[in-house]
């Protein structure tokens, strides 16, 4: 597909971006509200055009382990799911991080806990950035807030994943997944040639040529001393991400007395509430997180110095607010407002929360 203007759901945009970004394989399992990702891929039949493999697995446990197997051969392999399915994948995610396998995982969040609801939620923040599985690991976590970003972030995710040999999580929710918006598609990037694979993933397990030793993909290390060294290496990698790969957006923060901090669909609702506040003469800005890990700690602290209060807007019981308070070292009044269990807050509610919890 060349550059074109389309009207598309966020979930469809993910699928189209996978094809256009030269993804080699997708393995998934149906779950609402993200089933359109695999449905779109199956309808598009990319195996006939780009050669991309698409397979429906028997469970999320299998699909994430298929990602492990395929991505460990140095190919660009992805999966997607929604909250309960992502919970099932946590074992695979920690193995992927532990074996340093680049890959892309999309979570179109829904309300929990348990089977919960199929409506949008943002209650997987802790799971995403505080380590959903065991061990000290991090997923580079991108939070798209529009259909265009659902598309664009797939391309960005591949760059980061291979640059750092680390899984990348695109953390979306049912609202962005199901919403249709305008989308500019890009020209297709060809899938890597065999030469490019060998160059970009020299560690890959695709058959040992005579001129190198065998490549091993594992997260096992029986000697504690060596495992500690490996953990230091991971931490150094995460520190470098914190230094170089933080992404965020500020809107109207320059003259703001108050700011909303939000990501994903909540940031869209907060933007509307910000406009309503400005119409009433309240100077409100929006600090939108684009990367949740690494968190824009320094950048938020800088903005927070100039404001009287912060309202964190998240469709959860209050998860992101912990990182906001750590960033600002609680130097400014900070409160959480959210609806959860699948309820989306309205802009009116958000504005009222600002007035009642922060301004009063």
């Amino acid at each position, binding site marked *: 597909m060349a550059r074109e203007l389309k009207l598309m759901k966020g979930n469809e945009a993910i699928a189209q971006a996978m094809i256009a970004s030269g993804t080699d394989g997708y393995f998934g399992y149906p779950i609402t509200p993200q089933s359109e990702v695999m449905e779109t891929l199956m309808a598009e039949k990319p195996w006939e055009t780009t050669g991309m493999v698409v397979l429906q697995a028997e469970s999320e446990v299998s699909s994430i382990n298929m990602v492990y197997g395929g991505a460990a051969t140095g190919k660009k392999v992805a999966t997607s799911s929604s909250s309960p399915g992502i919970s099932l994948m946590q074992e695979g995610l920690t193995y992927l991080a532990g074996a340093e396998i680049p890959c892309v995982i999309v979570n179109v969040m829904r309300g929990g806990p348990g089977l919960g609801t*199929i409506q949008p939620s943002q209650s997987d923040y802790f799971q995403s950035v505080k380590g959903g599985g065991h061990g000290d690991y991090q997923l580079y976590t991108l939070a798209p807030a529009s259909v265009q970003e659902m598309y664009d972030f797939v391309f960005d995710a591949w760059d980061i994943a291979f640059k750092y040999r680390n899984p990348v999580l695109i953390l979306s929710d049912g609202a962005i997944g199901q*919403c249709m*918006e305008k989308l500019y598609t890009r020209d297709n990037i060809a899938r890597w040639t065999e030469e490019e694979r060998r160059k970009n993933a020299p560690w890959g397990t695709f058959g040992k040529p005579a001129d190198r030793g065998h490549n091993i993909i594992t997260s096992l290390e029986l000697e504690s001393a060596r495992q500690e060294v490996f953990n230091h290496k991971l931490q150094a990698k995460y520190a470098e991400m914190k230094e170089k790969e933080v992404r965020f957006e500020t809107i109207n923060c320059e003259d703001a007395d108050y700011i909303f901090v939000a990501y994903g669909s909540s940031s869209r609702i907060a933007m509307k509430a910000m406009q309503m506040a400005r119409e009433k003469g309240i100077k409100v800005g929006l600090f939108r997180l684009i990367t949740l890990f690494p968190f824009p700690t320094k950048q938020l602290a800088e903005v927070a110095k100039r404001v009287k209060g912060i309202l964190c807007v998240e469709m959860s019981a209050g998860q992101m607010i912990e990182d906001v308070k750590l960033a600002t070292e609680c130097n400014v009044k900070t409160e959480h407002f959210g609806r959860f269990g699948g309820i989306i807050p309205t802009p009116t509610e958000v504005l009222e929360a600002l007035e009642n919890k922060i301004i009063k």
Partner: protein
Amino acid sequence: MTEEIIIAGFGGQGVLSMGKILAYSGVMQNKEVSWMPSYGPEMRGGTANVSVIISDERISSPIINQFDTAIILNQQSLDKFEASVKPGGLLIYDPNGITHEPTRKDINIYKIAATAKAQELGISKVFNMVVLGGFLKLKPIVDKQYIHEGLEHSLPQRHWNLIPQNEEAIEIGKGLIEAVQTL
């Protein structure tokens, strides 16, 4: 210009596709658009609704709770969304199956007997386009030529032969809409 619309009715009435055709027409006219459905079990025979925003500017939230226009196709939706119309806004409803008429005094109210008309003409499949025609008569936010393009992009190519029938239904709707209360 920003027009924030809710379209609500039963699943199967073409609520989501009406919204999609309207949104795609907006795209063709180079507007900013968003289309946000309710999704889930209610899609299967229960109530369905979709918020459509068409604007000249970047759209902040695709999720909204107050609307310039509510297009209402059953009693449950009237009960749920009448209060969500902005003061001075527009409510359009199909009287088919409506037992309690809208009561707001601060909004414009129109009705369109699209169900009855579509049945009479044997064009039930394009009932939703009759309703869309009524809305476009009152708020011509997208031009006719872009509606045509919107239909082309929304319908699979094998159904393009039905586009003239859809366009006729829009014209029928324009003649069918009648004022109940105007401010």
